[in-house]
């Protein structure tokens, strides 16, 4: 099976959702989670996350802070903020409507 190409803007939603369900994560953790969920199907260098992270942080939807991992290494942990949760709700709604629409259109094919 070919790898999935990422749709514009969907990465932001995935990152938000990941942080909402799993609590604060560093970028490696987020990347691992996405890999795990997609079952290796996502065409994603881990570095690809960085632009999305800075964008979300600047919008105030997530907040990063330095902390120690269990193995006592330092890492930047991102946590979703209150506005981030609200935005996640809106974005999820948006995505569902869009996906439903696309699904409907595709299903109509004879």
């Amino acid at each position, binding site marked *: 099976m070919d790898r999935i190409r990422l749709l514009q803007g969907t990465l932001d939603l995935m990152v938000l959702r990941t942080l909402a369900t799993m609590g604060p994560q*560093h*970028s*490696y953790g987020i990347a691992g989670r996405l890999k795990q969920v997609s079952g290796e199907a996502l065409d994603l*260098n*881990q*570095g*690809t996350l*960085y*632009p999305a992270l*800075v*964008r979300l*942080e*600047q*919008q*105030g*939807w997530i907040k990063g802070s330095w902390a120690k*991992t269990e*193995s006592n*290494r*330092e*890492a*930047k942990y991102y946590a979703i903020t209150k*506005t981030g949760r609200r*935005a996640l709700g809106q974005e999820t709604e948006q995505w569902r409507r869009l996906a439903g629409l696309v699904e409907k259109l595709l299903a109509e094919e004879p």
Partner: protein
Amino acid sequence: MGRFRRMLARSLNLVFRRRAERELAREVASHLALIQEDHERGGMSPEQARLAARREFGPVEQTKERHRAERSFPWIEQGLQDLRYGFRGLVRNPGFTAVAALALALGIGVNATLFSVYDAVALKPLPVANPDRVVRIERWFSSGFRGDMQYGFSNPEYLYLRDWSSAFENVVAATWPVPVRVGYGEETSRASLVFVSEDYFVALGVAPRLGRTFGSGEDPESVVLSYPFWQRRFHGDAQAVGSRIGIRHEVFRIIGVAPAEFTGTSTMPLVPDLWAPLAAVREILPGRDWLHAEDQRKLQLLARLKPSAATRSAQAQADTLIRNFTAALRPPDPTIAVTITPTSLFGSSDDSRFRLFVAALLFVTGLVLLVACANVANMLLARGAGRREEIGLRMSLGASRGRVVRQLLTESVLLACLGGTGGLLLSVWGSTLLWVSIEQILAGFFGEVPAFAIGLRPDARVLVYAFAVSLATAFAFGLAPALRSSRFDLDGDLKGARQLGASPIRRSRLRGRLIALQTAVSMTLLVSAGLLLRGLLRSEAASPGFASRRVLLVSADLGDDAAQSPVRERRLIERLEALPEIGGSTLGSAPMSGTWTPPIVIEGPNSLRAESTGRTLASYASDTYFRTLGIALLQGRGFTREEAASGAPVAVIRESTAHRFWPGLNPLGRRFKLDRRFRGHYTEYEVAGVAADARFANLTRIDPAHVYLPTTAGHVYPLLVRTAASPRESLEAIRKAVAGSDQDLLPSLSLQTLEDGPVRVQRALARYCAIYCAVLAFLALILAGVGIYGVLAYLVSRRIPEIGIRCALGATSFQILRETLGDGLRPALFGLAGGMLGAFGVCWALRMTLVLPGSSDFFYGVPFYDPATLSIVAAVALLVAGAAVAGPAWRAPRLDPMEALRRE
């Protein structure tokens, strides 16, 4: 909300770039470490784990770059980075930077100088409140006459317009400056006075510095002083306000002093000494009916537009009102239109001749800037060739071509700004110099250096101009080299473009062309300057053809009464002729004081061509004219006393004119017709005499066609007096005689020998034209020389290895010398030839302006193919090019081959 936060965060990151960069590096490092740790736990060796982590993470630099693009504004960030980089580059090469900036400073400085003078004269607004709403009212005559009279309106016209127009908030009037004598008894001095309407100061929004200005119902015996006059005569004493001052035996009260920045509103920016209300005309100029006569157009009108009024409708209103008013009067030259124009300090700045003059000057200074640009472009090109490895490295690291071009252009802009700053400093100094020379010329016109209202402090407009020119030059000299330097194949250049045979710098066509262009432009300027200088020499030597040192031009204001003034002039002549210091006097046109070139028709079997029309200079002469001015009569006779009184249909023509119209024939008794008023009404004249040739219209050439017509009694003509004693004694005697009999002529009396007046103006013009052009040509030549030297020296230094090898292989010094010389001189020679053509074009254009017999020939009859000028100029240009080439060429064959090879 989120978008705004993001903008803010991105902007902050511009400032805290370093912090953001550190944070990013830290995060990426920790990310890599985490992956590596996982892999090590999974059993990989540390080295394997590190590589795997790298693979999983992806390209680090690209990630960082994309992070940066999101984090901040990449364009601005890169721009700042380019600036820093460019700045470092300039500092690293101080020699290159200094020479390039100096070249640009000269080019920009010359342009900024000219612009600041233009700005001071034509763009500065009138010194009144809200000058953009103040307009000047101007009339257009059916004859098409343009001089100063189109700004003149009579008092009745003014009152009519003021009272009936609705588009103007107010209309104010001011006369031209009138000469008066102020003070008492022997202690009088000359001053200039302007009569103004009572609301003049208030309506223009000019608040007094001291005291008050005129109000409505003003006492006609009150005056307001100008600031310079107050300083000069009262030494800035505040007690002056309220004190009394004598003007023409009447006592006036000083009610106030105008502020220093208020320099008057006349079309010529001369600061008057005093302002008086219009009603004071009666006391100061008794016998003048300026207030009621409809034909006394003595007032210049300014109007302030109502905030709601459109310029177009205001103009239509003024046009209708004035034309309706004057139509009933049936004036000899009817007004066909009235327009309103925006005001500037110099009233005639929208005159097409003035514009043409400015355009010509801008063109010449533009040429110097062009040389400077070509110069710097060439240096950048040579430098770009040397920077190929650096640029190649950057491009192979992922910089796009656009990015590299942008970076190189940023450097050019930096360089141009440096040059522009230097140029601005130069222009402050240069415009002062230029202004001094302009004042000298004007002093010849006005007899003394008048108080000009022009300040040459560079203002915001000059700054903006200099900045715009700098930016434009940055692109002019930077774009081509930037494009050229960034276009190459990566492989070859990185592997060592300096390998023999593959050298991309050996010969560049663009570089050769730039050298040729510089040489051509400097050559054009040089030839023009050379011809002007030759003209200058001729002008110094030129004899005008009349006794300019012994003839005085006597002028005085004889009043407006058309019947009385000729009588007064006649009386004045009689009194002067009685003086022993005077050797004769005459009435007639004064030389070099304006031209009159009516159409002339030569017809009949007498002339060579059956009928020919053309234009000729014409002027008036009385019976004593030729004797007084010392002009020899070669054939026939001068005018008789009767002819000079009746304006008889006879004429005395110049020798040149006889040759032109009746070549090879005896001109006496021939006839020609003259359209004296340009209306198609021809009057016939018979040639009575032939006078020797002279330079009458201007000093630059013998008048090609000139006829004298006899004067008519009852008209006023300029009064010319021949001195029998030294000019100084004669001046004294005349002044005393006038003071004894015609007291009221004294304030306006002006006495000057023709040499000190009109002839001096002509000589000064020739001198400053030549100096101006020579300075520019010199600058261009220096620039071109430095440019050629710089480029060639650089090229030789880049070719050291090649030369070394060739020497090692047996090439003789002579071969190398010849080749290097050729490299530099070949384009210079092409440029020389091109410059000759350019000079030819300039001369042709200047010659095209010689359409009328009265036009000035700036080259004083020196032909453009003047072999002396051309050969001297070519020699100078070759010398400079040769000197520029010689240094590098001399060094080339003397390089130690081993030393050269070791460098590889």
